């Protein structure tokens, strides 16, 4: 048998300038991957591309996209897919953390949140799914949230969107099992990023994007289905999910 030099991995990251996505992209860059970065802001994309090239990426392509415009999603996915003639891994990492009270007061705000945190990523995953399915290989890794595990008064609009995304991914996983495509549902807890910069980040529950990225890369390698990161959130959320109604309703979660 001859030694085969493995080809660099082809990775697309949708929402590539988010805190967690940046940390994930750096890890793949350092292993010599080829990367397609998709995000809204061209200047941030260009800066990220230069950084990843220094870190060892074999090649970096950037692509602008506004994920709130759901009609554009098929074209966005088609363009990213063809950059390196197919993908081995797609990471879907965009989303917003909107203010619950504002969304209760204004339907338009709630609609934006539901579009960006559920509708848009669901449609995008759908576009990726049939491409991976046809190739009978690949990994779809999507960031949902522990907030999707139970509706709570402090952020149920966001929670409903992420919960919906979790169900959608569950269904895709069921469908793509036969094709051997991995569908990973990533459920981070509190992560110190620009999305959460307005919150007081004290206490042991907060994790760094780099810790979370390490977990994500590990879960992709191990072909996991659902990842709670950091690990203790699996048990925290099990408690939250199973708290009996009379008790749960008295909490301010």
């Amino acid at each position, binding site marked *: 048998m001859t030694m085969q030099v493995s080809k660099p991995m082809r990775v697309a990251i949708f929402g590539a300038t988010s805190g967690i996505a940046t940390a994930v992209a750096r890890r793949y860059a350092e292993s010599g991957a080829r990367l397609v970065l998709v995000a809204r802001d061209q200047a941030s994309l260009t*800066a990220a591309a230069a950084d990843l090239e220094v*870190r060892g990426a074999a090649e970096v392509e950037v692509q602008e996209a506004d994920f709130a415009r759901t009609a554009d999603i098929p074209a966005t996915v088609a363009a990213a897919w063809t950059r390196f003639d197919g993908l081995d891994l797609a990471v879907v990492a965009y989303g917003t953390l909107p203010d619950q009270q504002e969304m209760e007061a204004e339907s338009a705000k709630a609609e934006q949140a539901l579009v960006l945190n559920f509708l848009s990523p669901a449609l995008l995953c759908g576009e990726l799914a049939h491409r991976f399915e046809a190739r009978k290989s690949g990994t779809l890794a999507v960031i949902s949230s522990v907030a999707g595990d139970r509706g709570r008064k402090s952020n149920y609009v966001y929670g409903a969107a992420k919960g919906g995304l979790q169900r959608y991914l569950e269904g895709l996983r069921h469908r793509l099992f036969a094709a051997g495509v991995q569908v990973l549902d990533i459920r981070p807890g509190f992560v110190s990023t620009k999305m959460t910069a307005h919150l007081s980040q004290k206490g042991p529950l907060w994790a760094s994007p780099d810790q979370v990225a390490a977990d994500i890369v590990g879960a992709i390698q191990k072909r996991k289905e659902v990842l709670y990161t950091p690990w203790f959130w699996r048990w925290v959320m099990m408690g939250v999910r199973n708290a009996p109604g009379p008790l749960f309703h008295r909490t301010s979660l």
Partner: protein
Amino acid sequence: MTMWRQDYRSWGRTVSANHVVDRPENRDNATRALSESEFPVLAYGCGRSYGDVALNPGGRLIDCRSLDRFLAFNRATGVLTCEAGVRLADILAVICRPEADGSGWFLPVTPGTRFVTVGGAIANDVHGKNHHRFGTFGRHVLALELARSDGSRLVCSPEQNPDLFAATIGGLGLTGLILSATLQLRRVEGLAVEAEDIQFSSLSDFFDLAEASDRDWEYTAAWVDCLASGAHLGRGIYSRARHYPGKGVEPPGRNSRLSIPITSPIPATNSLSVRAFNALYWRKLGLNGQTSRIGSYEPVFYPLDAIGEWNRLYGPKGFYQFQCVVPHEQAREAVADMLRLIAQSGEGSMLVVLKTFGDLPSPGLLSFPRPGVTLALDFPERGTTTRKLLRLLEEVAVAAYGRLYPAKDSLMTPDAFRQGYPSFEQFQPMMDPRFSSAFAQRIGLIKGEAQL
């Protein structure tokens, strides 16, 4: 609503202060944060300065740790451009990887921890064990990008804005916000090092060893047993190292393997443990009094990085660092005096480091290193007795025409600063009027209550 927080501290943890904190995601936002701030501002990085140079009580801190992008690296020339929040640990991990023959690009200068930002290394013009060969970190900065509170962004280098460049290197963050820097890395034939430890039994043996070693060894420093007195005064262990051609080593981890999770409620560094540590460490080399090894530079350069947040061992009151440099002519006498004062005081120190600085000029107006001998120590905060000792040490240093290191200082007097850093008069006009720090106010660099 303005959120004041107390969790931005200095490494010595002797001061607690209220800050408003911004953590800009990119250089544009960082520049904007300066000009829009209603409070005086100061950059904050990894928080590894011991004293108060990185604190700005009642003001705004710009946490630079999200400015962590590499901008360009030329593999042929070793010229690296990166944002100011990139840490030396990241440069080692990403850039300083061994090639097939063991050679590679390396940091020309590194301090005793790799967990510092490039911006902080420039602002404190840090030095390492190879000062006698490579000078300070600032000597290897080709250019930097500086944001000022008037909204401008200036490129500073020895050619462009040279006055501002000289003020910003070692400028303690007071001339503006360093956004990015271009560094000249150094080519080494082997990333591994050959390291030796040698026992010496007196201060004069140290000076002999230093003279003999500085010629053939590019990294040198010594640990001193500060509790030894009389005939043993100044005994210790001399460490020297040099790159080992043809042997490469993988870079050390980006984070410490272990971490101290909580602040020890009482200092783990009491007089008993200091006594035990010094007694044991002195004997660590066994009967031969000498060891030699070839391998990673990590235990040689970064012994303390093995344990994250080791500063918590000093308990809730924290600890002081003291580092001074005295010219060669006065060094033997002044260092002996200082060691005698420490031994008499009973305020033991575990990490006493003695090193000779070389003649390479430091590029910054307020750079600390100058030709001579430098002595560094740390003391757990025990109140007036500790401060009294530090005041006495300062007096000896100043009388010997020496000066103290702002990056480590908490107690320097305005007089000691003025005598040690006569260039402060050229420095002051280069300061950004909206920048401030606890150190600058204490020492009187900023016109306020404590004027010069």
